[in-house]
């Protein structure tokens, strides 16, 4: 479980934002969780709240919004598009990918042309959609 590490990155990020903007309260943060990182939402939410507490970050309960994001791939060679659901992924591979999503390029090739030159259009991992501080 590295949800803690990811949550800590977000918490420190919020802390810097507050400082920079001379703000005292987190009003809203939208966090997208790309499926490749297999983030356990409950563990992540728990870690984030715990860290906000440790760093004395004020926020309301509805401030944190987590949104799931499906994984979508597109081949740069042939243009084919596919999603993670189209693939069978065994547990050990899912485990490897959840640390460093880029290693998908080691385990999968384009289902149409076999190329490894494809891009992860979305669903890579944690990204921050919007933050409001006051």
């Amino acid at each position, binding site marked *: 479980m590295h949800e803690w590490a990811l949550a800590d*990155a977000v918490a420190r*990020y919020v802390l810097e934002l507050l400082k920079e903007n001379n703000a005292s309260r987190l009003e809203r943060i939208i966090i997208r969780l790309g499926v490749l990182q297999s983030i356990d939402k409950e563990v992540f939410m728990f870690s984030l709240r715990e860290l906000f507490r440790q760093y004395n970050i004020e926020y309301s309960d509805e401030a944190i919004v987590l949104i799931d994001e499906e994984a979508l791939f597109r081949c740069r060679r042939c243009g084919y598009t596919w999603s993670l659901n189209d693939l069978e992924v065994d547990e050990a591979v899912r485990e490897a990918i959840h*640390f460093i999503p*880029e*290693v998908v390029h*080691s385990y999968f090739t384009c289902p149409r042309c076999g190329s490894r030159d494809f*891009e992860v259009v979305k669903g890579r991992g944690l990204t*921050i959609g919007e933050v409001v501080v006051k």
Partner: protein
Amino acid sequence: MTNIELDPRIIAIRESLKDIGNTIVIMSSKGGVGKTLISSLMALSLSLKGSSVGLLDLDITNPSCHLVLGINISSIKPIEEKGIIPPIIHGIKFLSIVFYSEDKPLSLRGSEIDYAIKELLAITRWGKTSYLIVDSPPGISDEALDILSYLIDPRIILVTTPSPLSIKSIERMIVFLKDSGEKIIGLIENMANKPTNPINKICRDYNIQYLGNIPFDKYIDNCIGDINCIKTTLFYRSIEGIINKIT
């Protein structure tokens, strides 16, 4: 502070590297000059001398430090605990993307290399570490640029051979590094039975310390993967000499 720096991972990286004493990066824009052997053996030598040392392989699309040190990547893995904790092998905290790519091919565009490096650096918990040795790929692209941007106060050891093709290449790299004020510890001349004039001249011209030469060692290839064998080589003894100079 600009927006670029406000990637949460960049903030996490600063935090995760904060207990590292010295970050030493082995670099050359030419391939095959010995960067991987040198970085692996430096880590080994520092570890055997009692320092706490980490080895980070940032040759993302062609990692090979694990081969030099004979690390079985399928039986040994980083532990996942509030991030990842590098396994300690021969006393070295070792981290490489092969733990996750499993020695399969890993072809990545530059932006993907940048992402992978940011992720690796952000989630790794090195703990208190006196020396972090970083192996890097040839070329001057995302890996080298990321190393200089994300690592804290990286200090660089350059590697070259006396071949005319390596010389031009190392000169370009020196200009590149000096322009942005990077700290260069010095230069190692590999596969040279004694210091050569052209490399000495480069060191003088650019005011860089000549750290030593490593002779051509025809036994080194047979020892790859076996550290007891490695420790008996002329290559390893040369590395020990260089380590004594810089620590």
